[in-house]
């Protein structure tokens, strides 16, 4: 069971770093509270939805900003949605990137918007990577016969 202990420690340390570095905020903890034996995959399910939704939104944003005449209302609507979904799963850095993005939408500042899109995309792929790693660590613990520790 030493392996399980090591895996659990690695998991806990990784989780703590995600909070420390601002990738995740308290909302992610709230999500974990909603998971139990009757809904053991709740977090993975919601995060998977977030991944799907985000990739569509990022594509839509790229297209919207490439138009001859940019419809900033449309751009803002996408960013609003992205901000909402990232906030709902606790992806703090993505959410913050969206806040800045909306300011440029309001100003109808194309250059600003393009930069924000890049920033939001970057943050999104970072957190996606982190979360996939987290889920992998969980699987490793379960495969070794252990239980996934809960951070409080």
């Amino acid at each position, binding site marked *: 069971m030493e392996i399980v202990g090591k895996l659990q420690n690695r998991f806990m340390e990784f989780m703590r770093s995600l909070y420390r570095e601002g990738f995740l905020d308290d909302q992610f903890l*709230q999500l974990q509270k*909603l998971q*139990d034996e009757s809904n053991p995959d709740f977090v993975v399910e919601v995060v998977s939805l977030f991944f799907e939704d985000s990739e569509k939104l990022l594509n839509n944003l790229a297209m919207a900003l490439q138009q001859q005449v940019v419809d900033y*209302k449309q751009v803002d609507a996408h960013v*609003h949605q992205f901000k*909402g979904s990232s906030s*709902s799963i606790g992806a703090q850095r993505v959410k913050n990137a969206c806040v800045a993005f909306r300011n440029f939408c*309001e100003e109808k500042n194309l250059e600003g918007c393009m930069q924000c899109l890049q920033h939001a995309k970057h943050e999104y792929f970072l957190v996606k990577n982190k979360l996939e790693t987290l889920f992998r660590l969980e699987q490793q613990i379960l495969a070794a016969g252990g239980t996934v520790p809960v951070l409080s």
Partner: protein
Amino acid sequence: MGMAAADLQFHVLAVDDCLIDRKLIERLFRISSCQVTTVDSGSKALEFLGLQELDQNQPCVSPSNQQEVEVNLIITDYCMPGMTGYDLLKKIKESSSLRNIPVVIMSSENVPSRISSEGWSVDHPFARGGFDHVTRCLEEGAEEFFLKPVRLSDVNKLRPHMMKTKCKSLPQQEAEKMVTKPKQESIEIANVQSQAQEPQQQTESETVQQQQKSQANNNNNKRKAMEENLSPDRTRPRYSSGLTAV
């Protein structure tokens, strides 16, 4: 005639155009022992509630739907395409059959702090002279306004509001008092169960606190239940002291 377990459960209608948020809100309420129906728009919500719109100004109730659907709470997102949560709230409060269902609004933002450039609709946070969402909604009769993301602690606050719509779940002593009063034949006192039996999935301290709260509410509730659909008064608090002969 005993009470089926389903009768004790609250049924929540959740309205949100975002799939992730629908999933979240559904889980929040399910974990709190509520039955949940989710829809992705205000118009679908009205359809579910049995309110068909024949034309913009005259929603009518479809009688076949009305009996089957008992909803104890409607929780809706504020910012939705088409019918906003505020529009939905107004339609519900304008309906004599639905106005007593508590409505809660959720939003990712409250005060529109920015002054607009032209082209933004009045509901948009960027709109010039945009309204404070919270004030608008509370004035229109919403019970609560939650900032997203909504949490379990927010959902727990809603129990007293949902209790108001359940006149069946009265404690035995209260029901016995009612038997002697002439205008109360319509209330099914046989279906009374002690409040201690519900809700199940809460911590002990929360349960006790809410039982005490709902106990207080229920004294007013049975009167309110009788006054339902009679009182034209939409302002809060809703407990009317002007009773007919009881």
